[in-house]
Each structure stands twice: as C-alpha cells, then as structure tokens.
C-alpha cells in the first residue's frame, strides 16, 4: 500500500478513535456523572462488577477489538512516521517497519484473546 493510502487510513483511524475513545473516557473518567455504560453506579465505573457487566455484552467485546486494532494502527504508524524523520538507512527503515508490524499484530492478538476470554468469563460468572 502506498504512503498516501497509509496516511489517509491514519487520519480516518484518528477520527474513529476520537469517537470511541471519547466514549471510553466519558465512561471511565466521569462515569459517575454520565452513568454511561455503568451498570452499578454505587461503585466506580472501573470496578470489576461494572467492567464485567460491559464484558458480558458482545457489542462491547467487538467494540474493544475494533478500537484496539484502530488505535494500534494509528499509534504505531504515527511512531513510524516520527522515527523515519531521522532519515535512517533504507534497510533500517524496513527493519523498523517490520518490527512495528510484529509488535502491532502481537498486541492485537493478545488484546483480542483477552476480549473474547473476558466475554466468556463474564457470561459464566453472570450465569453462576
């Protein structure tokens, strides 16, 4: 994929993150006020009971994985852009790009597994 396309996806990812991470921040930081996605307002929005309630909903699990992928792309591509401004040798640039892709895929796999496993745990706990 050409640099222009990668850059355009970087911008689109930024706008998507603005919306999804904005919701995440509204929930996690001022959830006591907004009540947004907070099942039990007697405790903090980040308390395990609230976290588990969100994990039990498939929409949230899918949303987490989507946000994870978009944010990893935006962040790691941004980091690559900054580092490439150091005008590294071309071979070093290729190694750097490959390294960031491997890190990104590794963390995406880890986060996706966590979202699926947490969803299963939340459902099991909810039934139990």
């Amino acid at each position, binding site marked *: 994929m050409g640099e222009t396309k990668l850059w355009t996806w970087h911008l689109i990812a930024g706008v998507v993150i603005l919306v999804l991470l904005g919701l995440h921040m509204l929930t996690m930081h001022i959830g006591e006020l907004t009540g947004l996605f907070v099942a039990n307002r007697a405790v903090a929005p980040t308390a395990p009971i609230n976290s588990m309630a969100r994990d039990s909903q498939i929409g949230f699990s899918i949303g987490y994985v989507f946000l994870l992928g978009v944010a990893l792309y935006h962040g790691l591509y941004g980091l690559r852009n900054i580092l490439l401004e150091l005008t590294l040798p071309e071979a070093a640039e290729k190694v750097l790009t490959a390294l960031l892709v491997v890190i990104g895929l590794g963390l995406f796999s880890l986060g996706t*597994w966590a979202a699926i496993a947490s969803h299963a745990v939340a459902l099991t706990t909810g039934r139990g």
Partner: protein
Amino acid sequence: MADLKRYDNRLGIWGWLGGGRWGIDRYAYALHRLTGLGILAYFLMHIVVTTFRAKGIYLWDKHQILDQPIFRIGELLVFLAFAFHALNGLRLVLVEFGFAVGRPIEPIYPYKTSLNVQRPLFVVVMIVAAVLVCGGGWEFLGLSH
C-alpha cells in the same frame, strides 16, 4: 511503495521540538507528537494490564498494584494528553482536507498565509481542549463524587 526523496536531517532530534519562525502552530505540532508518544506508551501498557481481567485479575481495583497515587496522576496526564491530542488532531484532519484554510489566492504582498486563516479554528479547539482538561482535573480532585 513510492520512493521518497531523502534530505539530510540537519537538526536531528531538536528538529522535532524547535518552533523556529513558525510560532505557536509549530509548538502545537511538537506537543501533538509528544502527547501522541505518551498516549502510545500508556496504551501499550494498558493492553497488557487489561488482559489480566480475562483471568479475573483487576489490577486497577482497590488495594491492587495500580491503586496508588502515582498511577492516578499518570492517568490524569494521559487524560490531559488525550484532550489536547484529540482536539488538535481534529483540527489537523480538517486542515488536511482543506477546511478552514481559505481559498487559494494570488501571492500578493503583504502575503496572507493559510496559517493565519486557520488560527480561529486553532483557538476554538484549544478552548474545547481546555474545558476537557478542567473536567479531567475536576474528576481527578474527587469533586465529582
């Protein structure tokens, strides 16, 4: 992938930070990068930390390892960085697609640059970011409880 034309990086790392004659917009650019790197560092750790919940371990819960003032301060800094990065990023996307920079005009002295045309947008997004920063600080100080 298209070949990029390469230039010597004369300024090195200092070129990332120096505003030079470009003024406030260039410092916003440097701060955008710094906040981006900070958010990325936090995000990578956040992925690992939140993975533990799949095993029923909530490291951020009360009396857990992340339930300490230093991490609360770190979270506030991440929120402040997010507020700036998100709003300034929105401005950058708008400008990238040609919004708020005015129509192309003849370069007649005294020259008018698109930087000055988009300045009101810059001021507006910084005011919104400041409101968010105040909201984050308000929550951090426990005033929302």
